[in-house]
């Protein structure tokens, strides 16, 4: 059993703009994850849809939902259906591509989101597994290709290598670390932690101290 659904509010909730929790609320969540990892204003957004997402994104409002997530709107925000207009106003160019064939991350509700500006490009492969809950199965950032086990929460920490132990000790007191993986280049060091339960804001804040950059998904 994979514990994707960790809270009663994953099942009763979210409160959201219809019509589909996996194609709308889940799409907002995938967009939101990409926004957090990108961490700066983006100028272009490309979304590649697979399988059920490719077949039905137009009917489900998946396009505006993904953009709403990238713009940082919560799933019940009345502005969600207007997200494409908002993106245009904010100078974000969006493109949606329906891909043939199976999802490269093995789920029928797959969206691969690419965000870029002049300095940087990231890619997030997410799938929407139902009820608004998502998995992130691949992240390409700073030349690293991360393959998390999928279920959130996932914590990414950039910084000096000797910080890892400190973060790990702190995290272990908060929750169980389901997987830990570090990635290195000469210039950058990144650690990925897949966690058992959601962290509260003050816990994330306390981990932030001393880390060069931290992304909590």
């Amino acid at each position, binding site marked *: 059993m994979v514990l994707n659904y960790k809270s009663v509010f994953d099942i009763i909730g979210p409160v959201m703009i219809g019509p589909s929790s996996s194609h709308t609320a889940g799409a907002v969540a995938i967009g939101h994850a990409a926004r957090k990892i990108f961490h700066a204003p983006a100028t272009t957004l490309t979304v590649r849809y697979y399988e059920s997402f490719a*077949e039905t994104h137009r009917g*489900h409002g998946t396009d505006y939902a993904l953009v709403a997530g990238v713009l940082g709107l919560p799933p019940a925000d009345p502005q969600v259906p207007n997200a494409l207009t908002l993106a245009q106003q904010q100078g974000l160019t969006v493109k949606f591509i329906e891909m043939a064939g199976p999802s490269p991350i093995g789920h*029928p*509700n797959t969206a691969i989101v690419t965000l870029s500006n002049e300095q940087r490009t990231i890619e997030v492969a997410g799938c929407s597994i139902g009820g*608004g809950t998502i998995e992130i199965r691949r992240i390409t950032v700073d030349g690293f290709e991360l393959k998390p086990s999928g279920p959130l929460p996932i914590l990414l920490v950039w910084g000096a290598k000797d910080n890892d132990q400190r973060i790990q000790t702190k995290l272990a007191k908060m929750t169980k670390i389901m997987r830990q993986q570090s990635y290195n280049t000469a210039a950058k060091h990144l650690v990925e932690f897949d966690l058992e*339960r959601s962290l509260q804001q003050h816990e994330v804040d306390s981990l932030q101290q001393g880390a060069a950059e931290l992304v909590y998904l």
Partner: protein
Amino acid sequence: MYATIAELVSAAETADLSLSELMIQQEVANSGNSRDEVWAGMERNLEAMAAAVKRGSTGEGAFSKTGLTGGEAIKLKNYRATHQSLSGDTMLAAVQNAIATNEVNAAMGIVCATPTAGASGTLPGVLFMLEERLNLTHEQMIRFLFTSGALGMIIANNAMIAGATGGCQAEVGSASGMAAAAAVEIAGGTPEQSAEALAMALSNLLGLVCDPIAGLVELPCVKRNAIGATNALISADMALAGLTNKIPADEVVGAMKKIGEDMPQTLRETGRGGLAATPTGIKMKMRIFGQDRDFE
């Protein structure tokens, strides 16, 4: 976390606590939030559900942009006011609440996903009808949602709740099972009877495909929630009367998972099979989207 329904039921019996109480305690322990915060979170969900039912049952009702669905909760409301219904007014109240919620969902209004938006009418269908029929307190209504959530988590973690992975049995089927179990608790039944109600409700909807017209959460989704709600009530009554499913709830969940995995892709929320592939369904899709889609 409870891995199985059997484990949850046995924990409730051992501790002499309700399923809703176990769910609340688990949520407090796992989230790090206080009991008051957890309770208040569920109150906000209940408010959103009540608002959706009200919106779909007031005035002209809610209508989707495509024109495929809308206003039918109002038709039922008027029918109830002027006719002696065949299935009984209580049953039709549940149907009306369920349809009202899913019409709001199809109209891109605000709903609470339970467990999904496509299945968001099933729980409110049952809950707001029981509120009137049994004079439920506010606390009982909140507990109904915690019980539903406890069982929904086990279904979601052991099988699936998305139409794209398991068909509509995973959405309305799961919701119906969750609502049946919660209805039993609210009516004073035992945790074991809740499990039986879930087992019967889910067994009744096994194999239900996800075949939305034009890929939209409208037809047949709205009315399938009416079936989810009434099936939950019938299953809860059967369990309270002492009927049993014979196949245990966890094994029914396992069967649902296997059926979902065996289901062809055309019947898993692709809008390419079942009712979506009928001549009228295809005509509707062409009218809404103008043309069929092109792959890159």
